[in-house]
């Protein structure tokens, strides 16, 4: 797929709002997803992830705003949009008394597949999800959680969708099965766009091109991992393993970067060396400059050097923390009360 085609949005959401009774689940979110992109949807429980995904798959309607999938407006041609979407719902509800093959047959029929194309698509979906013939003959009610999840994903892939929405696809899966799901997405990368909602941050980090972090119905961060690292972490942290004394090493580092701080040092077992952790506000370039200088310094002995990049968990916590502090349990902005009212005795006087 060329870069031009990839830039064309397959999902275009503008100012989407949804309210459930008193709770404003979505407060006007806007985002777009490119063709063939894998986008991770992150957020704490109740952030509005599932609501957004259910709106995009046409299961529920938004109160206001505009959502286009494959260039088709959801509010106007919902049925048409559903033809382009494969959806795996949260908790993956499946009929217990059907066999896997019967269920996929039924779903393929509903999605308008017929004849040899239907058989071919079912076979491909079963292969993509590593579901053998033996499993496909079993009743869904007798399958383990992992296999049921794979049946749900196979269903989502059936009708050659242009967009696959997976709401918590790896919940309850063992690491091997999670890896199979990731591999499946890797195989389809570029041809199919994926929206992946998950609480397993390492998984999102490993397979998504871009992340959208939601909190209290708002997008609090959006971008690639690199963008998010730049956005939320303004210090570069690096570690040096050395046999030199702390004071000598610190002095050498400070000669290159005056603002570089030594955060902590830990002895490395058996080797009589220490692991020193520094932080700088000057970015990764400065950290690399420090490394070059230290290596060239004959008085110093450097065994290891590593720039530790902040993981998605750190970014996620930082992105959502501020939003959590400012909202009450209904997702409304907290009103800070005047101090006098906090103390009734003073107020009474």
């Amino acid at each position, binding site marked *: 797929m060329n870069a031009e085609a990839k830039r064309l949005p397959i999902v275009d959401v503008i100012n989407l709002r949804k309210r459930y009774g008193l709770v404003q689940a979505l407060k006007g979110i806007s985002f777009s997803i490119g063709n063939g992109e894998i986008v991770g949807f992150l957020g704490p429980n109740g952030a509005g992830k599932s609501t957004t995904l*259910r709106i995009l798959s*046409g299961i529920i309607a938004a109160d206001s705003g505009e959502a286009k999938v494959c260039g088709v407006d959801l509010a106007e041609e919902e049925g048409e949009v*559903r033809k382009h979407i494969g*959806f795996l719902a949260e*908790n993956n*509800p499946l*009929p217990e008394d059907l066999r896997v093959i019967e269920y996929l047959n039924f*779903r393929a029929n509903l999605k308008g597949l017929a004849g040899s194309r239907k058989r071919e698509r079912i076979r491909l979906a079963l292969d993509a999800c590593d579901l053998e013939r033996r499993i496909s003959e079993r009743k869904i009610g007798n399958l383990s959680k992992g296999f049921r999840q794979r049946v749900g994903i196979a269903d989502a892939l059936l009708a050659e969708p242009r967009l696959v929405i997976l709401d918590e696809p790896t919940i309850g899966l063992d690491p091997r099965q999670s890896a199979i799901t990731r591999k499946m997405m890797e195989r389809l990368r570029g041809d199919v766009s994926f929206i992946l909602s998950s609480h397993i941050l390492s998984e999102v980090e490993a397979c998504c091109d871009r992340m959208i972090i939601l909190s209290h119905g708002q997008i609090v961060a959006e971008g690639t991992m690199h963008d998010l690292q730049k956005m939320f972490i303004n210090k570069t942290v690096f570690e040096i393993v050395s046999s030199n004394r702390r004071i000598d090493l610190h002095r050498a580092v400070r000669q290159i970067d005056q603002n570089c701080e030594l955060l902590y040092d830990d002895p490395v077992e058996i080797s009589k060396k220490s692991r020193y952790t520094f932080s700088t506000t000057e970015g990764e370039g400065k950290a690399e400059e420090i490394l070059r200088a230290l290596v060239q310094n004959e008085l110093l002995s450097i065994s290891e050097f590593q720039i530790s990049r902040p993981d998605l968990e750190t970014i996620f916590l930082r992105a959502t923390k501020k939003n959590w502090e400012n909202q009450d349990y209904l997702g409304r902005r907290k009103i800070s009360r005047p101090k006098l009212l906090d103390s009734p005795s003073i107020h009474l006087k």
Partner: protein
Amino acid sequence: MSGYWHIFRHELFGLFISPATYVASFYFLALLGIGFNFFIEGFARTDWILPPLSSLIVGLTFGAPALVPFLTMRSFAEERRLGTLETLMSAPVDPFALVLGKWSASLIFFILICMLAFCFPLLLWLGFPDQAISLGFNQVEHWVGGFIFLSAFGASFTAVGIFSSSLTKNQMVAGMLTFTLLTLYLAVMAFNFGEYRDFGSPEGLDEFIDICLGSLNQGLSKAQHFAVGIIDVSTVLHQIVLSLLFLTLATLKIERLKH
């Protein structure tokens, strides 16, 4: 109407593999068979003026509140409880097609049970042809009239069941609601049985309501016509309107779940 045929087949398959349907159908048919047997044995001593086959029609109609809930209660209530309705709605399926598919499957099953019940007089005819002829079982119009009456009322009964099932996530509640609504419906018909109303000159509001609710309050009286092979078209139309009303209400409820 996209997806109607597939939903219909899926639902019918679901009814055929559900043990609850078989248990309910077995007991229903067994009780009906015993009742029919007693009726035929004592027919000569009764003052029943209609053909004996009509007893089966009345039995099926009044037994419907016990059977229809088992055919319809799972349809939406169970799907909503399990969450599979959400998965179903993510496919390109029209909500009315969904409701219609589920309803037609339960109606077909209801008709199938009626046909099995019709096997009782048929067996009698095969075993004892002379007695069967003396009881009038050789009159085809009695069979056809009874079958149309049961199909028309079966359509509205199952539509009530589908509507009840769309209201709740609990299939027991859906079943009880269906039972209550159908019992009320039959009670109205039973209380109005035999009361003569002249629909010829509808002048006041009462007359107008009478015409509109024709088969609701006069259904049992009309059963007499069907029993002798006279097809009352207005009764059939009333049942079709009633079925469409409840199916539309069920569709609106399913559409409402989106909001």
